């Protein structure tokens, strides 16, 4: 049996304004906004982690700064996103100095020193080293020794910060 509308409703042609209840949505937005403002960092990403590697984790609190970017992935060693030498070749190498990497770093150092003369941007010899967490110690030491010999003695090892 069909539902018979009541007599009052039958003639109710104007059901009144239908209002959208926005209060709960506002609540949600406010929470999201506060959360995002809290995580917001004015520094931005100074170091773009390379996509070819997984950085190690550390509990250090020091923040990164802008410097020459050196990446040691499982396959390649890259300076400023340009591949320089294969990691496997470096492991075969019988000395602490990696010649092709040293050459590349010297090019950058010369460029930076020229900039220092021309524009007064200080050359601090800083380099950030992004290493995959599974690379061997001997490889890291070779790269660091090469950096030290190629006027980049101030090294920063890039890590994921955990804990805080």
């Amino acid at each position: 049996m069909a539902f018979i509308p009541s007599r009052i409703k039958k003639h109710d042609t104007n059901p009144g304004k239908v209002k959208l209840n926005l209060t709960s949505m506002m609540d949600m937005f406010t929470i999201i906004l506060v959360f995002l403002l809290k995580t917001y960092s004015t520094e931005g990403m100074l170091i773009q982690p390379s996509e070819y590697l997984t950085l190690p984790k550390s509990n250090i609190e020091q923040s990164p700064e802008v410097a020459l970017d050196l990446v040691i992935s499982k396959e390649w060693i890259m300076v400023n996103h340009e591949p320089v030498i294969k990691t496997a070749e470096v492991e075969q190498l019988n000395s602490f100095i990696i010649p092709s990497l040293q050459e590349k770093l010297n090019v950058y150092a010369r460029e930076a020193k020229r900039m220092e003369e021309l524009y007064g941007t200080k050359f601090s010899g800083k380099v950030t080293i992004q290493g995959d967490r599974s690379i061997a110690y001997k490889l890291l030491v070779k790269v660091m020794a090469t950096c030290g010999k190629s006027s980049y003695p101030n090294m920063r090892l890039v890590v994921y910060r955990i804990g805080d």
Partner: protein
Amino acid sequence: MAFRPSFRRTTAGEDIEPNLTPVMNLMVVLIPLLLSSAQWIKIGVIELNLPPAVGTKTVVGAAPKETEKKLDLAVTITDRGFYLSSSQAILKSSENNGPTIPNLADGSYDYDALANKLLEIKQSATGRYSDTERIVIQAEPDINYQVLVSTMDSSRKIVVDGREVILFPDVSLAAGVI
């Protein structure tokens, strides 16, 4: 005589809703903006400064001056555990010739024990030696980078009773001659 306020007026209070549309507009703009600029992973750096122009065979800095008493603390990472040594002695473990801090039973490194041992050394060395901030970390050639970083973490500081104690934050790396 004053009029009595009408009952009808007071009871039929109209619902006044604030106009939320401008606020919504603001939210719709702000949230994508903040979402796109949010930093989801935090990145840190470990500083390692070498004295410029080091020799070929050493990564560690210049020869220490002999005028002051130096501790020369060193941690050696091997695949069996940590060896601790200083200018005075090499710390022995309970086993003969084993590492100072052997690995845990499941083969992982015992970072907590290392930090506690270093705290002990720090407490007894403070005031007696001039280099109680420095530590040399060396490792076997095939030691993993993550292990090295974790070792640096344990040698940097330790949390005792909710308080951070700085151990040896000035890290140098050393390697053997190839």
